[in-house]
């Protein structure tokens, strides 16, 4: 029996209404419990801050696109390589670290659960293999379904609506891949791009050859996810990412899904005003206001931070756009039936009008959205910035004077076009930081055992020194405990273990297999029977979260 008492720390457990109260947190055998015995290991957390382990709802850490990005920039990974030891494997760092380094760095940062936000189902074996080699953190992945030709056909057959067959197909796909949720990236747009470099501009564009519209794809699949009662709602990367004026289609998409659960990814990249081809403007205030009025909709920000990044997206038209803007390197990969991918190594410069405005828009969203349970922290790693920039971002949110000083260093024409010009007074509290970095992501993911420190929760705990410099505080936790085991102490990894794969499961009519197989052969070049991932070594150890069967 393994017991730990964390005593004397200030606990932030917003899911249970605890906001800085000094109290003990007790752990036994991998779970939070009400009390432990006198022989429990004692961690003296006086003067420290105690939170649940971090939960990253949207990141890119595993799969063919991530791996291609690694190969694309070998020159960016030679500084500070991870050194192997008796405990640790070697690897390389940079913006897209190797798998072992990814797990170590997330854990050292205090994160215990990370979601890979865009996995092609055809490459699920690859995604699972990389996640297996990403130690320490619990992992989940969302499967890309917004440009799936088989689903298009099912939606078409149902007259552009959701249907029991669509429900069953989505459930089949999750079961076949080990995925956790459904991701829609530029629904219909990637298919247009693969045809002849086209794209979707509006929700009611007719998709050539499919007799359906992006709106129908959104409604049908969002409806199916809700009907299935999957733990996480449909996760949407909206159309026209990065394009001036895209706030229109983002708001239209939100309105289309009003009344249903939906999570919007990296909303910063979708909050732009102006005209296509013209200068960027901010419409963050409108997006924030919409979120403020619709609590069934959540989002993660996708904050841009100045410095290196990699545009890595299933939204291949976006990468093609960056290529045309003069990107040095460009990679594109079309995956049959399902999706695409575009990668462009990138850098955000504070002197650039566009980059500075993007940076400001992300902060506007954080500061104008009233309910932290609806707007979660992310940089869409590595698209907006590395996940290692989270501590700096937290400081920007908590420290107004620091934020203003940073804004003063950025392109002033851009800052002048944002609400930062007038100074936004809001400063996030530690309780709110705990919400946006663990409690809200866990809740939105439907992970009832994570993101909080109530009895029965997973014993995932991060303990920080309570430093005035919030960046330093969050950059180097004193302790990171996962499943009741101390993994990090005093900034060093003390133990390494595998972490668990989190998968979602919903029941489905097995006869969907016959329907899918009838649509398979003329589309895929992999046999239907060879597609599902049955390898236990890839899918275990796993925790399966059951769908609730109706939302």
């Amino acid at each position, binding site marked *: 029996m393994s017991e730990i008492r964390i005593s004397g720390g200030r606990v932030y457990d917003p899911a249970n209404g605890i906001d800085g109260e000094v109290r003990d947190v007790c752990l036994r055998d991998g779970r939070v419990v009400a009390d432990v015995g006198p022989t429990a290991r004692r961690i003296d957390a006086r003067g420290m801050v105690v939170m649940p382990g971090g939960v990253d709802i949207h990141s890119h850490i595993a799969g063919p696109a991530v791996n291609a990005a690694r*190969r694309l920039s070998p020159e960016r990974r030679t500084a500070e390589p991870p050194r192997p030891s008796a405990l640790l494997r070697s690897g390389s760092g940079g913006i*897209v670290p190797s798998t072992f380094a990814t797990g170590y760095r997330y854990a050292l940062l205090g994160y215990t659960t990370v979601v890979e936000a865009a996995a092609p189902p055809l490459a699920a074996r690859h995604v699972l293999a990389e996640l297996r080699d990403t130690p320490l953190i619990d992992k989940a992945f969302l499967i890309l379904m917004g440009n799936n030709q088989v689903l298009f056909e099912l939606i078409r057959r149902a007259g552009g609506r959701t249907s029991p067959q669509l429900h069953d197909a989505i459930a089949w796909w999750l079961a076949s891949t080990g995925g956790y949720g459904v991701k829609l990236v530029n629904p219909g747009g990637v298919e247009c791009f693969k045809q002849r470099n086209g794209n979707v501009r509006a929700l009611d564009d007719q998709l050539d050859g499919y007799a359906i519209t992006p709106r129908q794809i959104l409604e049908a699949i969002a409806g199916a996810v809700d009907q299935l009662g999957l733990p996480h709602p449909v996760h949407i990367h909206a159309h026209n990412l990065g394009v001036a004026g895209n706030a229109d289609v983002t708001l239209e998409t939100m309105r289309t899904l009003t009344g249903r659960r939906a999570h919007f990814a990296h909303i910063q990249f979708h909050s732009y005003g102006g005209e296509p081809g013209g200068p960027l403007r901010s419409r963050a205030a409108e997006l924030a206001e919409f979120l403020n009025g619709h609590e069934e909709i959540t989002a993660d920000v996708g904050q841009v931070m100045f410095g290196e990044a990699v545009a890595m997206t299933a939204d291949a038209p976006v990468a093609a756009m960056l290529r045309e803007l003069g990107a040095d*390197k*460009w990679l594109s990969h079309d995956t049959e039936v399902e999706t695409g991918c575009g990668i462009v190594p990138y850098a955000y410069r504070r002197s650039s009008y566009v980059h500075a405005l993007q940076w400001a828009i992300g902060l506007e969203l954080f500061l104008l959205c009233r309910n932290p349970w609806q707007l979660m922290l992310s940089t869409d790693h590595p698209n907006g910035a590395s996940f290692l920039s989270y501590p700096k971002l937290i400081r920007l949110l908590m420290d107004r004077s620091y934020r203003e000083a940073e804004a003063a260093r950025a392109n002033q024409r851009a800052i002048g076009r944002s609400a930062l010009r007038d100074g936004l007074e809001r400063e996030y509290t530690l309780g709110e930081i705990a919400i946006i970095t663990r409690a809200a992501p866990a809740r939105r993911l439907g992970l009832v055992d994570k993101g909080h420190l109530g009895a029965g929760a997973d014993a995932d705990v991060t303990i920080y020194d309570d430093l005035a410099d919030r960046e330093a505080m969050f950059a180097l936790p004193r302790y990171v405990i996962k499943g009741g085991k101390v993994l990090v102490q005093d900034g060093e990894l003390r133990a390494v273990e595998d972490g668990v794969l989190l998968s979602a499961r919903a029941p489905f009519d097995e006869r969907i297999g016959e329907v899918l197989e009838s649509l398979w052969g003329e589309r*895929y*070049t992999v046999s239907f029977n060879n597609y599902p991932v049955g390898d236990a070594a890839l899918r275990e150890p796993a925790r399966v979260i059951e769908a609730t069967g109706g939302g």
Partner: protein
Amino acid sequence: MAEARSGGSGPPQARAGGSEPPRAIICAGCALLCDDAAIVDADGAPALTPPCPLGTAWLAERAALTSKPAATVDGAPASVSAALARAAQLLREARRPLLCGFAQASVEDVRAALVLAERLRALLLLEVQRGPWPGTAAEALRGYASATLGEVRDRSQLIVIWREDPERTHPRLLERLGIGGPPPRLAPGRTLVVVDDRDTATAARAQLHLELPRERDLEALAILGLLARGRTPSASELVEPLRELHARVEAAGHVAFVHGAELTGGAGGQRRALALYELVRALARRLHAVTLALPISAGERGAREVLAWQTGYGTSVDFATGHPEPVLATRASAAGESADVVLAVEQADAYAAADAALIALSSVPPATDAAVWIRTAALGVQAAGTAHRLDGVPLTLRAPMGGDAASTAALLARLTEEAVA
């Protein structure tokens, strides 16, 4: 770590009269990894259906392996334990160990090899690095555009096969790309162009055969690149035939360039690869252009993927300093020359490092004398495991035939325990 186990559904396929029903198999005879294949009996010998000479030869060779010794030490039959002990001793005493091969290795095998390489602080060369494979370095300089097989089959109106002969090297590729079959599902038609100065079987299938000398490949790609950018190339007898090709490319909404080591390997290969990628990039402004690379062996693509995700580099790496450092493609051969012990993993033709002791873990006996050879369960025949198709799609290969050998991954794990305990 997945344990690829030997095992299967029965004894090797050697029944008379074709009485045994076909058994499904994913063929690892080349990097195409056809997964619609089955083992049938052909006059007492195993064969594949749909028919493929390369696949049948691959299967037949591996089905007959159980008659070979389990291991050899200095050419004499030995137990696996004795062979492992000798191999471990060689590796422990090595000044500069080298791991190489992976032609028929699974993802699980490569993962196990990387554990050993890291612990030994060894040099790890991918099979193709025996000669320069500058295509990798070119990718890292500018990137590339690619697609899976189905995208090319269903959308490409023009397929240009550049100096490769897949009818010989990947016999079912043209079939699987739909060449000679019905029109593409998502495009109005399909034309095959072959650029090659050889009268190959592939060239015989083409609607247009551009007979271009090998030494003019770079010039030709540069001319096409200029045409793609709307510029006028300097006078050359290549310009007119290439204008015709360019016109076909421009008329096609979707074009695929199929290429391999014949174009992007060898001296100057990196420049040719870059020229191809620049051409595709220029074309991508107006139409959808992709490339499809043709690695030869079943393990090649997967080995690169595992290397990339575990080390960050999809190339050969050197663990001498304790962490992986990339080995430049053009220096790979030179780097290997310093090895004193070579561990060849699933590579039939051993790396020829002068004066190095060779340890071979392979289902097929090594082509050269080895200090140690341990017979492994052949991937896709006696051992299950994951492999990546030439377009990156991962597949789980089964073990339809029984066998008595351990998997490569299991043997590497044992070797790691003994060599670096």
